[in-house]
């Protein structure tokens, strides 16, 4: 008779394997190990060592993250067509290196170092927000340091901002970052996590109707976020999240595009653009969503083409509609 118990591992080995699995999981690129190192470095790294560490770690991640590297290169091939292969390799490295710098600056700010210079462009679009009677959706992209800019932004506007984040992929990372976000946070800022079954859309609609501001990222489709296709260029489409457009329509609030761009050593620029307000028939939901998606696509495209080295999207976002139809057929 086959004895299953014979093949069971001894308890000590089971514990050892479990500990090893947990350790390897934390060493994963989404694990909390690297973030803990980053925060440790922000506390003790001498300033003249930072560029060396950023460069060497950037190189290591560039070599290790094959999938992300190819996705960034594929996106860059659409944003900046006609470059040589070597140029794409260099540009991809620049994106990953820049991402490392923004994370470093974020860690410094979370540790409590006041080191960042901010430039604001488009103040005329931000000034009316402080006196706005209604809520406002601040639509942004995954570039620069939006995580750090939000408290500054809220402080200047003197309005409470609710930011929406996708939870981190690993529970340990999520817990660690949640703790860091609650330390040194601004009284004007609340972070919401878009977790499954959280009914966040209803909560955000209520907040907007109560006159609060909501900041959402509008350039990435992660997990089960509902997408809205929009034209990037002739023959090329990208998927934009449908949520912000729906929220704007339901709560009847304007959408203000705000982008954060890293200019260099500890210097960032906040770029605000003209808001979008749907002036058509409020019952025409499809028309309103299409118009908002077209407007946001044009806004985002301009910024992404100008600051391509700042756009931290590590998934392929562009597709050709003809290819998609072929696939479907």
């Amino acid at each position, binding site marked *: 008779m086959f004895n299953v118990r014979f093949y069971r591992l001894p308890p000590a080995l089971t514990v050892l394997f479990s500990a090893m699995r947990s350790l390897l999981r934390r060493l994963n690129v989404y694990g909390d190990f690297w973030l803990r190192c980053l925060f440790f470095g922000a*506390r*003790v790294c001498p*300033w003249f*060592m930072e560029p*060396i*560490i950023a460069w060497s770690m950037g190189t290591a991640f560039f070599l290790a993250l094959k999938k992300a590297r190819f996705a960034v290169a594929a996106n860059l091939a659409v944003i900046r067509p006609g470059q040589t292969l070597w140029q794409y390799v260099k540009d991809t490295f620049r994106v990953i290196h820049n991402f490392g710098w923004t994370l470093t600056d974020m860690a410094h700010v979370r540790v409590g170092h006041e*080191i960042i210079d901010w430039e604001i462009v488009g103040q005329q679009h931000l000034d009316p927000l402080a006196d706005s009677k209604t809520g406002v959706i601040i639509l942004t992209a995954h570039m620069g340091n939006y995580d750090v800019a939000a408290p500054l932004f809220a402080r200047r506007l003197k309005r409470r901002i609710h930011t929406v984040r996708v939870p981190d992929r690993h529970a340990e990372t999520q817990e660690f970052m949640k703790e860091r976000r609650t330390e040194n946070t601004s009284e004007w800022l609340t972070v919401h996590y878009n977790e499954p079954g959280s009914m966040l859309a209803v909560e955000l609609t209520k907040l907007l109707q109560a006159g609060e501001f909501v900041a959402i990222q509008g350039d990435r489709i992660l997990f089960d976020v509902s997408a809205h296709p929009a034209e990037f260029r002739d023959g090329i489409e990208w998927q934009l999240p449908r949520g912000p457009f729906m929220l704007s329509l339901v709560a009847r609030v304007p959408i203000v595009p705000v982008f954060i761009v890293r200019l260099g050593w500890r210097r960032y620029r906040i770029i605000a653009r003209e808001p979008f307000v749907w002036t058509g028939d409020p019952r025409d939901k499809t028309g309103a969503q299409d118009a908002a998606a077209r407007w946001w696509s044009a806004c985002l495209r301009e910024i992404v083409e100008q600051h391509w080295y700042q756009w931290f999207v590590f998934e392929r976002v562009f597709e050709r509609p003809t290819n998609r139809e072929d696939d479907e057929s």
Partner: protein
Amino acid sequence: MKTDRLIDDTSRPMVHTAFARVFMPPQPPVTPEGVDVLVTARDRLHEPEVIRVAAFCAIWSLMATGCFLPWGGDGWWMALRAVVCLGIWLPIWAVAMQLIVVVPGALCAALESRRVLSNQESLTLATALAVLIFTVAAFLLLASPSLVCQIVGDIWLFALVLEGMLRVVLLIGKLLK
């Protein structure tokens, strides 16, 4: 010994090099064209200074630690050996750079957690220890048989002595004010 000095400015002069204070004195922040508002940070550094010092440290530590490798040979053999040496040495050097931060940093973090040092003081100590490690590397360069390495080592030690002297002069100037 415990300290309650959680915020102090004892390490602020360490943030800038004395060289930069003399040759690149802090400028009032200028709002760039097209920018509506400029919000400046409390602790600001010159970007060119950071890049200059970091590049110097990187190049010279790479030379210092790699100068004992078997470079040399003739023709293609020399090129091959150079590529192999660089290929082996660059990752080791990159890890060594991390250790220059991690080892003194861990010591400082331990002292900080026991409240022996404040946040700023531990950063100062970590910076000083990193400088010390680079100085040891400079002595390695001096011991190298290569003339180029000896010259670079000399430059570092000369720069370090000059930096120290400038720092003393600045301190005296500050005290006399």
